[in-house]
């Protein structure tokens, strides 16, 4: 399918999220859309998918102008979309989710057999194995993503939009996804891919369009270096790997001993873990998602009771303390999932910037909360962390994904800390902001703070960590100095292979 966007403009109040954007996607092309956080990528795709109505401009499919009033119209024109946040019903089976909205019926009764057959056919054609009978909530994210793609493909789309599909995937899952996209391309489908990961873009895109502040600033070809692409996105030179000197570790700040934690279903998720983070060092915890990292961190933060063991912060026991007490002891926490745990969507940016500080001076006392001080703080933080928002009083839910992440990082890293626990701190953030966040983490370290970094992103671990602990099935199977670590070695360890 040939897709053409002409002069698409979308305004939110005074803000022009898309400013006369032109874009052409040729049949069988993988077209990457790059741009910093808040550039307007998701907005443009939502316009294309019929979720938003453009204020100006037209959409042409195979040179025929279209009006999309709803995603239904877009789907019938052959356009499918996989959203940044999945839109599956967790308690439905794969087959039910895929049927949803396009139910096959026989005399008014759902024809599950036919649907299952169709799904199997599609998944075989494109090499996307899914089990139609599996319940979606029991599946790993990578597989859920596959379900979303199969869902789009069963609608017989010719153009597939993927909005940051790899943000939540492990490196292996990402490779599989890229393989699938190649297959789709070979089958003649067009693909629009949004991502902040330049390596993926270079690996797979045929053409690249860069958007900045709502405008197309240029096109590039995948042959350009990552540095050049990054510079084009943010309009300045970006240092992709931060400079840092060797760590000068001091006294132990966090000492975890024999810690065991169970998950929500009562299964042992963390078994007898020992861990030490010292002042002035970054300990990176690497591991494939779901190997107990989440439970470990939650236990340290007092969000989840530990079964046994102890957690010491500078010698004082943290186990059994409330989250409030842990935070007050000088711990900063960037949670893994920003929308469920990190932000209150209805709150303003300013309020979210003090979500765990509202009781401390100058924002408030035990009883009184001071909106004026909160507003002043917001002004400074927004500037310092380059949060792109219409105002400090805008609800945080109206910010782009990456800017929401920056709000959390700004909140947690703007007070004196003994220990910073950061879980996927740069998830969904553009290269420019990754650089900034990474620099801040290193600065935290250099000022004598201890940093516990949890990431499924090997690049991030390798860029920041001084020592690396690899978690596998609830245990730390190896701890090694970052100096000797390579992605290959870590990759094997993450898969549970220790012997050498």
């Amino acid at each position: 399918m040939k897709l053409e966007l002409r002069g698409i403009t979308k305004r939110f109040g005074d803000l022009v999220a898309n400013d006369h954007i032109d874009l052409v996607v040729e049949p069988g092309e993988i077209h990457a859309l790059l741009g910093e956080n808040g550039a307007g990528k998701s907005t443009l795709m939502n316009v294309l998918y019929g979720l938003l109505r453009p204020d100006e401009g037209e959409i042409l499919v195979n040179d025929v102008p279209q009006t999309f009033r709803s995603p239904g119209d877009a789907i019938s024109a052959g356009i499918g979309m996989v959203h940044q946040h999945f839109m599956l019903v967790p308690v439905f089976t794969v087959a039910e989710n895929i049927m949803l909205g396009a139910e096959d019926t026989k005399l008014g009764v759902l024809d599950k057999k036919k649907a299952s057959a169709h799904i199997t056919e599609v998944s075989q054609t494109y090499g996307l194995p899914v089990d139609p009978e599996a319940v979606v909530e029991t599946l790993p994210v990578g597989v859920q993503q596959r379900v979303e793609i199969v869902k789009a493909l069963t609608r017989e789309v010719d153009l597939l939009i993927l909005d940051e599909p790899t943000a939540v995937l492990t490196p292996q899952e990402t490779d599989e996804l890229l393989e699938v996209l190649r297959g789709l391309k070979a089958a003649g489908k067009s693909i629009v891919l949004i991502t902040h990961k330049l390596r993926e873009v270079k690996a797979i895109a045929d053409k690249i369009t860069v958007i900045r502040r709502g405008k197309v600033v240029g096109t590039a070809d995948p042959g350009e270096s990552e540095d050049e692409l990054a510079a084009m996105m943010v309009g300045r030179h970006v240092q992709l790997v931060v400079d840092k000197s060797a760590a000068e570790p001091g006294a132990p700040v966090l000492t975890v001993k024999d810690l065991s934690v169970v998950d929500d279903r009562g299964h042992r998720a963390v078994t007898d873990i020992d861990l030490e983070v010292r002042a002035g060092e970054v300990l990176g915890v690497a591991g494939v998602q779901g190997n107990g990292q989440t439970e470990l961190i939650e236990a340290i933060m007092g969000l989840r009771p530990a079964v046994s063991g102890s957690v010491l912060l500078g010698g004082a026991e943290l186990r059994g303390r409330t989250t409030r007490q842990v935070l007050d002891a000088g711990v900063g926490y960037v949670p893994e999932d920003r929308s469920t745990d990190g932000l209150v969507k209805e709150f303003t940016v300013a309020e979210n910037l003090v979500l765990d500080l509202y009781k401390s001076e100058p924002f408030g006392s035990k009883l009184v909360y001071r909106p004026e001080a909160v507003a002043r703080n917001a002004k400074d933080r927004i500037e310092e962390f380059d949060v792109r928002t219409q105002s400090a009083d805008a609800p945080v839910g109206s910010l782009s994904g990456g800017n929401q992440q920056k709000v959390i990082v700004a909140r947690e890293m703007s007070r004196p800390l003994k220990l910073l626990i950061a879980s996927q701190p740069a998830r969904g953030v553009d290269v420019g902001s990754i650089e900034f966040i990474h620099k801040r983490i290193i600065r935290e370290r250099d000022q004598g703070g201890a940093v516990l970094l949890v990431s499924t992103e090997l690049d991030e671990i390798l860029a920041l960590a001084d020592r690396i602990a690899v978690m596998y099935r609830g245990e730390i199977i190896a701890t090694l100095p970052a100096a000797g670590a390579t992605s290959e070695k870590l990759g094997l360890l993450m898969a549970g292979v220790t012997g050498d």
Partner: protein
Amino acid sequence: MTDEAKPPAAEPERTVPPEKDVAPRPNRPFRIFIEELTTASTFMVTVLAVVLALLVGSILVIISNDSAREAWGYFFAAPLDAFEMSWYAVRDAYVALFQGAIYDPAKPSAWGSISETLTYAAPLTFTGLSVALAFRAGLFNIGAQGQAVFGAIFGVLAGFLLHLPPVLHMLVALVCALIGGALWGFIPGILKAKTGAHEVITTIMLNNIAGIFLIWLVVQKGFQNPERTDAISKSAEENARLPRLLGFLEGDLRVNLAIVLAVLAAAGVSWLLNRSTFGFELRAVGGNPDAAKTAGMNVAMTYALVMAVAGGLAGLGGASMSLGLLPFALTPGVIANIGFDGITVALLGRAKPWGVLAGALLMGGLQAGAVKMNAVGGVPTDMVYVLQALIVIFIAAPALIKTVFRLRDGKASRSTATLAKGW
């Protein structure tokens, strides 16, 4: 690479280029006013919901009016008659509504109608605040009725069991009412906090218990008025009653201190929500309990406390009836329906304290007007409940209002949708 040669230095915030900036633009307040009028803001939706309810209500007025019905009976003989009669019926009804609520030349005092409206509005403000506060914390307090019952009971008991000097007695009685309501609100709160029991279920049950307890209590020895055989308790002592505000005017004006307390309560809740740490916690918990927990807040404790405070407010609402109005005693119907009406008021006020006060004034006006409407036009007083129900339906369905009045999608419409979803 087709990028611009160098990045533009400090790009200005993107703004819409003003479309043909010829004439000087209208000044700001006016623009805001226009925007408010033409966009589907919460305020306009509320006003239009009321208008729409009155329109639909007029059909009911016509049906309930004998001469109008009769005229429709011979519609084909004299069609104009039917319309004329209908018009008279509706006009008379709404004129009576206005007279009952705001100004009635027939009353001995020009303040007569206002006095009634304020009298009705005061308890509704309290219960409305109760529901609104809980709602902001993500809780649906159906229990304001039961909490108000306990407030009324504690208030009157303190009113006749204790013997204290003026002013002090009243203050003590009010504090007792507050505690009574707070206790009855704390129960579902702590149940939710400790066991996860849904507050809607528990508060409905507690409403029933409170109502039946009241019926039982008023006929018990020591509580029942010894001079009466019907279900009525002893009266609160003079010192414990809420004084009338316009007692010096002629016309026996009922409006009393309760409305002043209600305004203070709205101010207090407004402060609590926006300028206290508890309010911040409450709103955070209401918005996203997981994030609130991660930020170190005690979500369970917040639920329990919010329900206690909400109960206390409803309790004051109950006392404003039992200590503010004749016979200053408990009867099975002493607080009427103020708890349930409070839900409507909170919805009308969009769960904002000053909005609640406005909503209570509107509801109070409707109730005061309904009495007059009944007396003059024979429109059943239940008409008010029909109007109330219609308003709720129209507010809960902003999309409907928008289609009916073809409003542009406004900035505020998103919060409307959230509210509608929440309810």
